[in-house]
C-alpha cells in the first residue's frame, strides 16, 4: 500500500515538473514572443481614491525583459523539481501560477499602465461576498449539513437589509402622490432620536439595523433548512433548492410590489470607507486592508474567529466530530442535533450578512436576483479551500481576483484577445478540477449530507 502511494507521489512530482516547464514555455510562446521590443509596462501602486498612506512611485518594467525573467524562473523551478524535487509542492505550485499570472498582466498591459494596487483592492471587494458564502458553507458542512442554499440566504439577506435600512434612513420620507408623510409619527420619532446618537458617518445606525436584519433573515432561513433536514431528514440538496427557489420568488415578488414602486423603501445608503488610524497609513498594506468598509472588517474578524473557534475550542472540535462521525460524537455525549442546528443557523446568519454586502455594502439598492450566483461561487471557494476558513478566504481572493482582472482587462481589450467571459469561468472550472482530484484531493467531512438517526 505504501509503495503505491509513493509511486503515485513520484508520478505527480514528475508531472508537476513538466507542468512548470510547460508554464515557462507558455510564457515564452504566448507572451514574450508576442511582444515588440522596447515596450514597458507600468504598474500603479497607489489605490485610485485618496488615502492616508504616502504615495508610492509607479513600477515601470521593460515588458519583454520581465517576461523572459519570469519564464526563466518558471523553467528553473521546473528543472529543480525534476532533478531534486520540492518538499512543499503546493506552495511551489502557487508560486509558478503567480509567475504566470504576473506574466499575463505584464503582457496584457504592454506599452500601457495598469493600476496593480487597484486590481488587488478590487479583488478584495469582489471576494467579500464570496468569502461570506464560503464561511457560511464551512460552518454548515463541518457539522455535516450540506448547504446549497447560501445563494438564497444571501439574496434574502440582501433584500431585507436594504429594506430595513431604507425604512429607518428615510423615516421622514413623503408619499410622492399625496405629499403626506409615508410613515407614522411615532416611527419618525424613533428615527429622529436615533439620529442623535449616531456613532460614525461611515457606520450609520440604520445600516447596522439593516445588517442585523439581514443576519436574522439568513438565520431564519437556515433554521428552516436545519428543521427540514434534521427533523424530517429531507434530502439536504432538495431542502437547499427549496430555499433558493423560495428566496428568488419572494424577493422578486416583494421587490416588484414594494421596493420598485416606493423608492424610499429601496435606498438604504451604503457603508463608506472607515480608515483605521495609524494602520491605514502604512504603504500598500494600509490602503488595502485598513481602509475598508465596516462590512469588510466584519469579514476579516469572522475569518480569524471561525478559524480559531473551529480548530482550538471545544465547540469547534465538537462541530468537526459531529460532521465526521456523528455516532461516535453522540456516544461521547455530544448532542448531534443541537450542534447541527446551532451551526446551520450560525452559517445562515453569516450568509445573510454576506447578502447585505450586495445592497448596503456596495450599491444601497436591491435589484432582482442581484447575487447572480455568488453564493454558489462561495460554495466553490469552500471546496477549493478544503473546508477551512483561511483556505476558503484565500480561494475567495483568487476568485475575486479573476473577477477584478477581467474587469480591468476590458481597458486593454484591443491588445488582449481573451473574452472576459472565459476569465469569469475560472472559479467554476477550478472547482471542477479540484473536485476531480487533479490537484490535491478535496475531502468533505465524512458525514456531510447524511442525516443522523439516533438508535
Amino acid at each position: 500500500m505504501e509503495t503505491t502511494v509513493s509511486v503515485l507521489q513520484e508520478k505527480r512530482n514528475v508531472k508537476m515538473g513538466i507542468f512548470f516547464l510547460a508554464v515557462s514555455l507558455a510564457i515564452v510562446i504566448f507572451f514574450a514572443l508576442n511582444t515588440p521590443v522596447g515596450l514597458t509596462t507600468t504598474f500603479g501602486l497607489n489605490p485610485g481614491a485618496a488615502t492616508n498612506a504616502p504615495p508610492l512611485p509607479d513600477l515601470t518594467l521593460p515588458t519583454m525583459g520581465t517576461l523572459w525573467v519570469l519564464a526563466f524562473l518558471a523553467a528553473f523551478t521546473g528543472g529543480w523539481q525534476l532533478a531534486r524535487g520540492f518538499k512543499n509542492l503546493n506552495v511551489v505550485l502557487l508560486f509558478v501560477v503567480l509567475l504566470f499570472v504576473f506574466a499575463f498582466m505584464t503582457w496584457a498591459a504592454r506599452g500601457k499602465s495598469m493600476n496593480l494596487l487597484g486590481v488587488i483592492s478590487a479583488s478584495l471587494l469582489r471576494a467579500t461576498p464570496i468569502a461570506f458564502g464560503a464561511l457560511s458553507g464551512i460552518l454548515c458542512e463541518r457539522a455535516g449539513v450540506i448547504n446549497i442554499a447560501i445563494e438564497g440566504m444571501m439574496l434574502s439577506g440582501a433584500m431585507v437589509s436594504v429594506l430595513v435600512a431604507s425604512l429607518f434612513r428615510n423615516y421622514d420620507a413623503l408619499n410622492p402622490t399625496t405629499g403626506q408623510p409615508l410613515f407614522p409619527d411615532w416611527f419618525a420619532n424613533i428615527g429622529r432620536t436615533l439620529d442623535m446618537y449616531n456613532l460614525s458617518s461611515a457606520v450609520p445606525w440604520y445600516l447596522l439595523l439593516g445588517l442585523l436584519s439581514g443576519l436574522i433573515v439568513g438565520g431564519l432561513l437556515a433554521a428552516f433548512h436545519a428543521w427540514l433536514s434534521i427533523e424530517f431528514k429531507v434530502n439536504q440538496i432538495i431542502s437547499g433548492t427549496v430555499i433558493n427557489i423560495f428566496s428568488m420568488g419572494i424577493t422578486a415578488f416583494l421587490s416588484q410590489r414594494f421596493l420598485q414602486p416606493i423608492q424610499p423603501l429601496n435606498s438604504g445608503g451604503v457603508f463608506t470607507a472607515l480608515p483605521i488610524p495609524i494602520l491605514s497609513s502604512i504603504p500598500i498594506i494600509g490602503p488595502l486592508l485598513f481602509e475598508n468598509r465596516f462590512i469588510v472588517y466584519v469579514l476579516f474578524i469572522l475569518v480569524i474567529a471561525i478559524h480559531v473557534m473551529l480548530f482550538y475550542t471545544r465547540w469547534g472540535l465538537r462541530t468537526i466530530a459531529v460532521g465526521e462521525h456523528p455516532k461516535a460524537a453522540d456516544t461521547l455525549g455530544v448532542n448531534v442535533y443541537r450542534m447541527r442546528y446551532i451551526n446551520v443557523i450560525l452559517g445562515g446568519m453569516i450568509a445573510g450578512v454576506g447578502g447585505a454586502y450586495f445592497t448596503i455594502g456596495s450599491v444601497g439598492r436591491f435589484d432582482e436576483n442581484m447575487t447572480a450566483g455568488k453564493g454558489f461561487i462561495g460554495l466553490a471557494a469552500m471546496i477549493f479551500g478544503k473546508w477551512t476558513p483561511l483556505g476558503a478566504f484565500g480561494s475567495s481572493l483568487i476568485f475575486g481576483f479573476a473577477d477584478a482582472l477581467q474587469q480591468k482587462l476590458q481597458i486593454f481589450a484591443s491588445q488582449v484577445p481573451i473574452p472576459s467571459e472565459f476569465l469569469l469561468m475560472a472559479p467554476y472550472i477550478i472547482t471542477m478540477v479540484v473536485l476531480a482530484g487533479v490537484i490535491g484531493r478535496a475531502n468533505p467531512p465524512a458525514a456531510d449530507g447524511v442525516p443522523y438517526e439516533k438508535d
Partner: protein
Amino acid sequence: MTTDEKITPSQNGLSSIIKQTFDLVLIPFLAVVTALIIGGFIIVVTDAAVYTAFGEGGIGGGLAAIWTSVSVAYGSMFSGSLGSARDISESLVASTPYIFAGLAVAVGFRGGMFNIGVEGQLLLAVMASVYVGSNFSLPWIIHLPLTILAGMVAGAAWAALAGYLKAKTGAHEVINTIMMNYIVYLFSDWALNGFLCRTPCSSPVSPPVLESAFLPQFFYRLHFGFFLALIVAFAVWWLLFKTTIGFEIRTVGTNPNAARYGGIQTTKVMVLTMAISGALAGLAGASELLGVNRVLAAGFSSGYGFDAIALALLGRSHPLGVVLAALLFGTLRSGATRMQSLANIPTDIISIIQALVIVFIAAPAIIRWIYRIKAKGAEEGGGVMVQGWGS
C-alpha cells in the same frame, strides 16, 4: 421506489386500485392545495388595499377585501390559463418544456443522480440547435430531426461529463452541474455576442431558425413538440420499467454497491443515466426553440431546470406523474402571466408556490400533521436518494 408496483392491479380488485391510487395522489394533491392557500395568504398580506379596507370598513370590509384580493388573483390565474381555447393552448405550450425537463430530473433521480444542471444542459442544447437550425439549408425531413438531435447530443454530452466525473472520481454531480450551469451561462453570453449572433450583430440575439426546422404550430401556438413530449414520456416509462437498461438504472439508483456486486457496470450506468437526463433537457430546449421562440436571445429559459426539480418530486419521478405535474405547472405559469396583467400580482408568486410544493412533497410529515392523516407503513420521499458530497 415502488410507485409502478402500486399502480399494477393486485388481486383485490377495482376498489383496491382506486384506494391505492387515492393514497398515491393524496399527499401531492394536498401539497398543491396547501401551497396555493399559503400563496393566497402572501397575496393578501402584501396587498395594501386590504389594510386600507380594514381601516375604513372595519372587520366586515376587511374580510370582503381579502376575498376580493384572493379571488381576483386566482380567478384571473385560472381564467387566464383555462378560460378559452386559446388560453388552454397556451397552457399546453407552457407545459411542453416542463414535461421534458421534469423527465430529465426524474430519470436522474431514478438512477441516483441529482441533475441540478438541467438549466445549463438546456441552454447548451438550444445553442447547438439554433446553430444547426439556422446555418444549414436542408429539406425539413432531414433538417428538423437533425436540429433536434443536435440539441439532444449537446445536452447529453454536457450532462454525461458530470456523470463520468462522478463515476470515476467521486466528484459530486450536484456541485459539478451547478458549476457547469454557470460555465454555460458565460459561454452563451460570449457566443451570443460572437459566432451565434445574427449579422450584423447589434444585440445578443441569434439568427432565426430556418422554416425547415420548425416544429409546426397547429392550434394557436400549440406545436408538435407537445405530442413529442407525450411520446417521449411513454418511451421513458418503457425504458425505465420494461428494459434491462432501465432495471440497471433503477438498481444503481437504489443501491450502487449492491448493483456493483450484482455485476452491473455502475460507471457505464451512471454516465448513461446522466446522458439520458441531459438528452431530455436538450429536448426541452430544442422543442421550445423550434416550436415557440425560433430564435435564441438572452433570458431564453425562465428557470425550467429548477422548476423541473419540483416537477420530478411532485410526479414522484414517475413519467405519468411528471406529465401531470407539468400540465399543472404549465397551467399555473401561463395563468400567472394573466394574473400579473389583471391583478397586478408579480408572476414570481408561482416560484413561491413551487418552493412550498417541494417542501410538502419532500417532508410529507408536515402535510400529514396539518390534515391529521395517518402514515401508512414506510412513506417514501419520492424516489430521492440520501447521500453526501463524498463517495
